[in-house]
């Protein structure tokens, strides 16, 4: 199975995602430069964390214009699994592949620490191997991770079961204290309506080995391997709940 890790100028978690996929998971992965037009026949696409183009404007606002994003959009439109981690999530929001926007953390400061997130949905490519309600201990590292969606969009996300991860306590309880950045409804990650595009602020690639403090993030990558192996979108009925 082949992963593509997109490299924007300013990406800085590209090598980490690549390492997790190749060294920990044992799958193959290739870096794809943002000026390229092709994803090289990848089965899975990762938009990694970092500060694409420096993020001096809004986070992710420049990256969506990179040539590779057309290929990412086509891939997503065809149902291919796309994972946006941290800055990659921000890029997906700016590119319109996922709904909503990012604000500065409510504490106004960058925060890097392990947090707990609860798996809300297990029918996305990146959560099929997790259990619903499973609590993962995964680090965050961001200054603009305060997910915002207007009330209608937020309601639609809930109705369509597009909230994939939520910040909780270690026991899986949603509390204000457990929400590290002020995100609406403690949202840590969401998926597209077709469920194949997933974005999350925490860094699963930083939590794939016990030596790093947690291996809970591995399930995200194991999920997509299982999902693709099983034939991808074609193999699973897509959950559709009408509003």
């Amino acid at each position, binding site marked *: 199975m082949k992963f593509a890790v997109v490299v924007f*100028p300013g990406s800085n978690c590209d090598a980490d995602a690549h390492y997790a996929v190749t060294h920990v998971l044992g799958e193959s992965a290739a870096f794809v430069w943002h000026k390229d037009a092709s994803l090289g026949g990848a089965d899975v696409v990762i938009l990694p964390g970092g500060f694409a183009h420096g993020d001096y404007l809004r986070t992710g606002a420049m990256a969506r214009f990179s040539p590779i994003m057309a290929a990412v959009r086509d891939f997503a439109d065809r149902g291919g699994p796309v994972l946006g981690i941290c800055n990659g999530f921000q890029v997906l929001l700016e590119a319109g592949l996922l709904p909503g926007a990012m604000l500065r953390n409510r504490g106004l*400061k960058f925060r*890097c620490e392990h947090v707990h997130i609860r798996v809300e949905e297990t029918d996305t490519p990146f959560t099929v191997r997790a259990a619903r309600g499973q609590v993962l201990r995964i680090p965050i590292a961001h*200054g603009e991770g305060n997910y915002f969606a207007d009330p209608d969009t937020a309601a639609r996300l809930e109705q369509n079961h597009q909230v994939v991860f939520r910040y909780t306590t270690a026991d899986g309880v949603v509390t204000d204290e457990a929400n590290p950045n002020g995100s609406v409804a403690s949202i840590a990650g969401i998926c597209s309506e077709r469920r194949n595009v997933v974005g999350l602020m925490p860094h699963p690639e930083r939590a794939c080995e016990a030596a790093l403090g947690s291996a809970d993030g591995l399930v995200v990558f194991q999920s997509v391997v299982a999902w693709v192996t099983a034939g991808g979108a074609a193999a699973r009925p897509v959950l559709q709940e009408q509003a």
Partner: protein
Amino acid sequence: MAIDPGVLERHGLKPDEYDRIVSFMGREPNLTELGIFSVMWSEHCSYKSSRVHLKTLPTEGPQVLQGPGENAGAIDIGDGLAAVFKIESHNHPSFIEPYQGAATGVGGIIRDIFTMGARPIALMNSLRFGALHAPGARRLVEGVVAGIAGYGNSIGIPTVGGEIAFEPSYAGNPLVNVFCLGIARASDIIKGVASGVGNAVYYVGAKTGRDGIHGATMASAEFDDKSAEKRPAVQVGDPFMEKLLLEACLEVMQTDALVGIQDMGAAGLTCSTAEMGSRGGAGVEIDVALVPQRESGMTPYEIMLSESQERMLLVVKNGREAEVERIFEKWDLHAVRIGRVTDDGMLRVRARGTLVAEIPNRALTDEAPVYRRPMERPSYLVNVQRLDLDELGQRRLPASGDALLDLLASPTVASKQWVYRQYDHMVQTNTIGLPGLGAGVVRVKGTKHALALSLDGNGRYCYLDPRRGAMLAVAEAARNVACAGGRPLGATNCLNFGNPERPPIMWQFAQAVEGIGEACRALGVPITGGNVSLYNETDGRAIYPTPIIGIVGLLGDADRVLGRSFHAGDAVVLLGSGRGELGGSEYLKVVHDTVAGEPPAIDLGAERALQALVVDLAERALIRSAHDASDGGVAVALAECCFGTGGVGVDAALDGVAISSASRLNEAAALFGESASRVIVSTQPERLADVLARAAEAGVPAKAIGRTGGAAIRISVAGRAAIDLALADAEQVWMSAIEKHFEKRVA
């Protein structure tokens, strides 16, 4: 403009230095040449006051691949790899503009590392501020921390550790010392040399602006009430540009098309051209009109002296230019050919072909002035070293439990989570020892190894005795590395002092360097480079003399990394012996508002044996935690071992000491005395006998002092209960002391 005494003064040059310039040149310099001399002969670039002392430091060892004199030092860590590291100060700019000052400090040290061909994998910093509640302190702390975070987080290099202390002496002169470590193939280390006549000299990176002109000269002067007006001399950082430079330069270095490379840091284009030429025994000729410029109408003087950030100078092998240009283009960077290497040893600067400066490189570098400045033992020492313990014992002393809480709330001791949570300390997925728990530890991917890194310094000790204080700093940094399981291999130092033209300051400096040298020799850790920051004075008041030591150690097996945290049900062993030394202690400062006495004694032989023992125990997996007892003594160290464990307390019994006629002070001395060379380790009970036997064999005093577990911190001294605190309460005090100072919850 004629060169008169006023011009010289504005350039920080003394009349006799000007005479020296004229004799080198055989004529009067023009203003551009004078500017070039002034930055190259500034204290910051020339080390003219410190050089004679620095020469005495041990810099050699079988593991040293690169000693002082290059952009950074390098040590062999096996597997054909080198650890490339250095520490540097950015004190003066950070006082004037905290965010940009700190940010560009981080940017500068990162460039020093990747310039050597190493990929940077870890940052650390050592910070000093005035009292946290003092006016202006909050602005400085917030700005410096945000600046370090803003740069390091963006470029994607984890900040894995460091230290912070607060003392009134730093109120007008905060210290911002930044450290970076990278990994290179030992055979591929690249140097800052220009050689090969006719080879092209390239400029790449950000455009040159008027920012930072005379930054090096500013860093070589004291502050006064006009310092805020020097803000234009502070540069603005662009971590995105540096990230592009880093990736592009590392890619270019893979091609072997480079002869040499150097970043334009202090003294910008001037320093990089002169130093590269001088190291290569060659000359460099450039035309400043070819230098990419951000502003119009810049003069050759301004272009040569600008300290705009994120710029590199490269010498490319003849015929390989297109290859190099192509790589920079990929990263949207434009490498511009601005000159060539010559064979006449001159730095020759043209502007649209017209000669505007011509100076022998050696006059700027090797022949810069060297001063053996007068020294004098400071008169304050007689008074501050006197500490009447019997008199102190007569005072009203707090209960030991209350004293411990006071110490845990002291910003120097308290949790720095509010700080390091703002730093991305996990990016690159190598961090296996999280910050706030002792040394920073990063694994080396592709090997079984890990590196443990620690920065330490104690200005109060050095104020009371610079020589011993410096020895203690080396010992503590190495001990912290050992406590993580690392064998100390090499050191870097950042020497922060006042005005060297004052004999008492110069004495402090010389004493501290002697102490560093002696300790490094005894512990087998050569100095591979570093930085000197002098003139840390405001309105005539100097900071505490503050040498900061960075030590890098190697763990043969990354899986054997140790933290300080206790596990329930283990035996606690104190290695080393306490003598109840309170001189210069955090206890005296916090509880008695006193900075006095002599710092703790240190026996370097005993220290070396202790460190070797701890590493040995770690490698054999005989211990489950190790933590050095320093600020606040054994009591604070025991408490710290309980914090962050999810509620594993400790019950320990310490021996008494007799330092005073007052029993309560004796109790405090046993608990909070800061005798050096002590480590608290914990071990599973069935391994206790083995641990004690190995300690005996190593000649290290060792005593089982208690057990982990329970939800309290209980410590007795000489059989009498001294401290009994609920762990949760103590941890809350320690966790919140700094945070509550800054955070008002924005909901």
